[in-house]
């Protein structure tokens, strides 16, 4: 599709362009910033993951008092949620992979505002430091949703976590702003809107949500901070305020945030499936537009988190109806991916495995979403383990599978080495099986009535909880193993060629790893990025 500039590989690339810690900490190179995000996000993922394992350990036996005390347990699930949502899942694909890949995919030298990009990273880390600092003080025990008035009354250091999330939010806003302008202004010659790779479309839709929704979260968290410092009373029923108003404000951001998490993963899957099926993507326009359909609906369905909060029946009617329509664009994407595989020539390298895993888990996550969108059904299921299982299928099954697919897909580009295929296969099955063992029983637990955020539970829920805990160990082993083989591959992996997957998007038309300014000469685009002809079914890496 482009004038290849991969030929002039001189051995000089972004990793050895300049040396030393300071050259990384002060870099304006989007690739290095992406790598720094990736390592930070993975560190927080380790933290959040360990918390999750501790939570599951406590739930191995009914009645509490197994490993943790109630207050410790409450802090751990708060931290698990807050870290995973604000510091892992939201920034994982856009800020880490997106930062690295987006300019390369566009044929640009960098993002539009490189200094702002570095500033966003430091803002993110500052927010993260505040949140983590609270851990060493009195912690926070409100749940990641910070519902009032409990979050006003608790004597834990919830204010630091609020402040951390507030600051990290600005990083999200500025990254979104940067990406929108980059996509508008820095596309290579010939890269028209109808040739834009679907990952870029997905990041574009995501950025719009980040820019429009995050400021509302910022002001909400700021109000809650003021509530704790000056007792302003906006959300405090004792002072005439309205605690349910907080939920409206919170979900006005946090529902779109769910799509900030899932849309980029969908973008990754839309790249991986055609490449490994050696076939054009099915329904390019439908997939691109459905991202915007999802982004639009994202802003008008927040009330579906509040069907039993006491909002009016009419509001519930509207929110339930609108929520149903989320399933339509989501279904369009799912069926299009499936149709892309039809009559393809399928290669099962790790990225494709994770894409298939995504399809399986996301289908379950999506279908159970319909249960929760249905008014009467939600009344029984909301705030139970059914909801916990549902959003883990979407966020872990969706976003993390997307992240793993993208990480393996672009690993050769990022570090110039291949990951080993066999360990990746083993880790994939560990994570997949472990995930289903952990979370599928939670659907049944929820339907049976076990509420979420329970430190101790009744004896009849023991068996399913135990199965779930055992599953969590498999996931843990799978991820630790992945960290191990990827770390090893970084040092000793086989050298990667410029385009190991024989893919058509621009990031593969430059050397691996790319040179300091991405391309030796500006690429010129002459066709769309999914032009896989019937004979073009081989990949260098599998040859």
């Amino acid at each position: 599709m482009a004038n290849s500039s991969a030929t002039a590989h001189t051995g000089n690339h972004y990793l050895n362009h300049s040396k030393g810690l300071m050259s990384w900490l002060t870099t304006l190179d989007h690739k290095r910033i992406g790598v720094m995000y990736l390592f930070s996000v993975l560190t927080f993922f380790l933290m959040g993951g360990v918390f999750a394992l501790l939570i599951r350990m406590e739930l191995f036996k009914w009645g509490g008092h197994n490993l943790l005390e109630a207050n410790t347990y409450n802090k751990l699930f708060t931290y698990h949620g807050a870290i995973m949502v604000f510091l892992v899942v939201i920034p994982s694909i856009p800020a880490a992979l997106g930062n690295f890949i987006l300019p390369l995919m566009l044929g640009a030298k960098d993002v539009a505002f490189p200094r702002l990009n570095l500033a966003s990273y430091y803002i993110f880390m500052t927010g993260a430091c505040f949140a983590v600092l609270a851990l060493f003080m009195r912690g926070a025990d409100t749940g990641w949703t910070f519902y009032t008035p409990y979050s006003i009354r608790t004597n834990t250091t919830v204010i630091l976590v609020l402040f951390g999330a507030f600051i990290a939010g600005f990083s999200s806003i500025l990254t979104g702003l940067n990406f929108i302008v980059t996509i508008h202004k820095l596309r290579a010659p010939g890269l028209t809107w109808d040739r834009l790779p679907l990952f870029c479309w997905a990041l574009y839709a995501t950025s719009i949500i980040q820019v429009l929704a995050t400021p509302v979260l910022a002001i909400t968290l700021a109000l809650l901070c003021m509530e704790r410092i000056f007792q302003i009373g906006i959300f405090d029923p004792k002072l005439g305020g309205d605690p349910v108003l907080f939920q409206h404000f919170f979900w006005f951001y946090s529902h779109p945030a769910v799509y900030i998490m899932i849309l980029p993963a969908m973008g990754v899957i839309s790249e991986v499936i055609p490449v490994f099926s050696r076939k054009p993507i099915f329904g390019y326009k439908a997939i691109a537009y459905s991202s915007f359909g999802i982004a639009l609906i994202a802003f008008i369905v927040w009330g579906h988190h509040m069907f039993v909060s006491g909002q009016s029946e009419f509001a519930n009617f509207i929110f339930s109806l609108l929520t149903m329509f989320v399933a339509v664009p989501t279904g369009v994407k799912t069926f299009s991916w499936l149709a892309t595989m039809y009559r393809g020539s399928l290669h099962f390298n790790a990225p494709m495995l994770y894409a298939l895993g995504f399809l399986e888990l996301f289908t379950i996550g999506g279908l159970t979403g319909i249960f929760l969108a249905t008014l009467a059904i939600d009344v029984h299921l909301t705030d139970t383990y059914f909801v916990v299982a549902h959003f883990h299928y979407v966020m872990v099954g969706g976003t993390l599978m997307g992240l793993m697919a993208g990480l393996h897909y672009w690993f050769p580009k990022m570090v110039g080495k291949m990951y080993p295929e066999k360990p990746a296969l083993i880790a994939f099955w560990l994570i997949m099986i472990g995930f289903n063992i952990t979370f599928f029983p939670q659907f049944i637990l929820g339907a049976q009535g076990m509420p979420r955020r329970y430190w101790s539970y009744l004896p009849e829920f023991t068996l399913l909880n135990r199965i779930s805990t055992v599953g969590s160990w498999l996931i843990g082993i799978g991820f630790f193993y992945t960290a191990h083989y990827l770390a090893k591959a970084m040092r000793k992996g086989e050298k990667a060629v410029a385009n190991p997957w024989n893919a058509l998007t621009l990031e593969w038309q430059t050397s691996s790893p790319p040179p300091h300014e991405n391309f030796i000469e500006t690429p010129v685009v002459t066709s769309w990025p999914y032009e896989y002809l019937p004979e073009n079914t081989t990949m260098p890496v599998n040859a």
Partner: protein
Amino acid sequence: MFNQAFAGTTPLQGSDIAVQWDSLYNFLVWLSIFFFVLVVGGMIYFVFAYRHHPGKKTQYITGSHFLEAIWIAVPTLLLLGIFTWGYSVYHSMTQAPSDAYEIRAIGKQWLWTFQYDNGRTTVGEAYVPLNRPVKLIMTSEDVLHSFFIPNFRIKQDVVPGMYSSVWFTATVPGKHQVFCAEYCGTSHSGMLAKIIALNDEQWEAWNNHKKLGAIPEAGSDFSSSSSDLSASRVVAQVSLAEQGRAVYETKGCLACHSVDGTQKVGPTHKGLFGSSVEMADGKVLIADENYIRTHIENPQKNTVKGFNPVMPTFKGLINETEMNALIAYIKSLK
């Protein structure tokens, strides 16, 4: 067969609504299985049918407006149908009949109190008539709670500063579990209660302050549940301490106190009786009958050193028989 396939995954059907709810739930499960098999089954078929081998060619397909129209139109219609069904069941959940028996419920960290029109008050258990609509009018004294009865498939948040309500018609006699479903702090998972659905005879007896026999868990075999006795209203076949244990559990003491030596929000009761206890202001008291009684009825007066004065008063909520049984039970915790 289709309607019973997932019965094991849902609780007992304890109300009219639960029956309607289960039909819709079963339909959604079957529908999900259909789409799961369609997508993941299709995917697995493709994985085997179209795997790469040297020399393989693909077919150049970029889309089909016909297929797209189908997979937009069919789900849209299905979803509208599901929405309508879901809303109609929900609507009947919200419309309490005007002749419903009203009970007022108060949530506070971490117990439920129920007040009846006849002036009675119960903690941790709500007595309701069988086969008659009952409406709970609820509020909270502190933070958000949520009143959740799995057997009836209903749930409603309880918000400080406002009243919310929930209604049901219990169709199965016995005790139905109640959970707090909105996170409310340390003992959120200990904030339990029971709805006790009484038949006409028992309801009559309860309203006339007569003793009730053993009330079993809803759905369990009546004869095998004779050990599960309802606190004060028990015919004295078991020891006073055993009766006290039932009071201890139903009044929610376990949310904050333990009987095995672990410290929760409040001090443990193991080995309490007869010991010397230091108060927050430094004075030392001997834990005797009077000590326990004053700490139940007026807990703010003397707080045990190292604990916060957060316990609510139970004055008027525990009658004399119950108090005697309770003290006997705490005395038995060596």
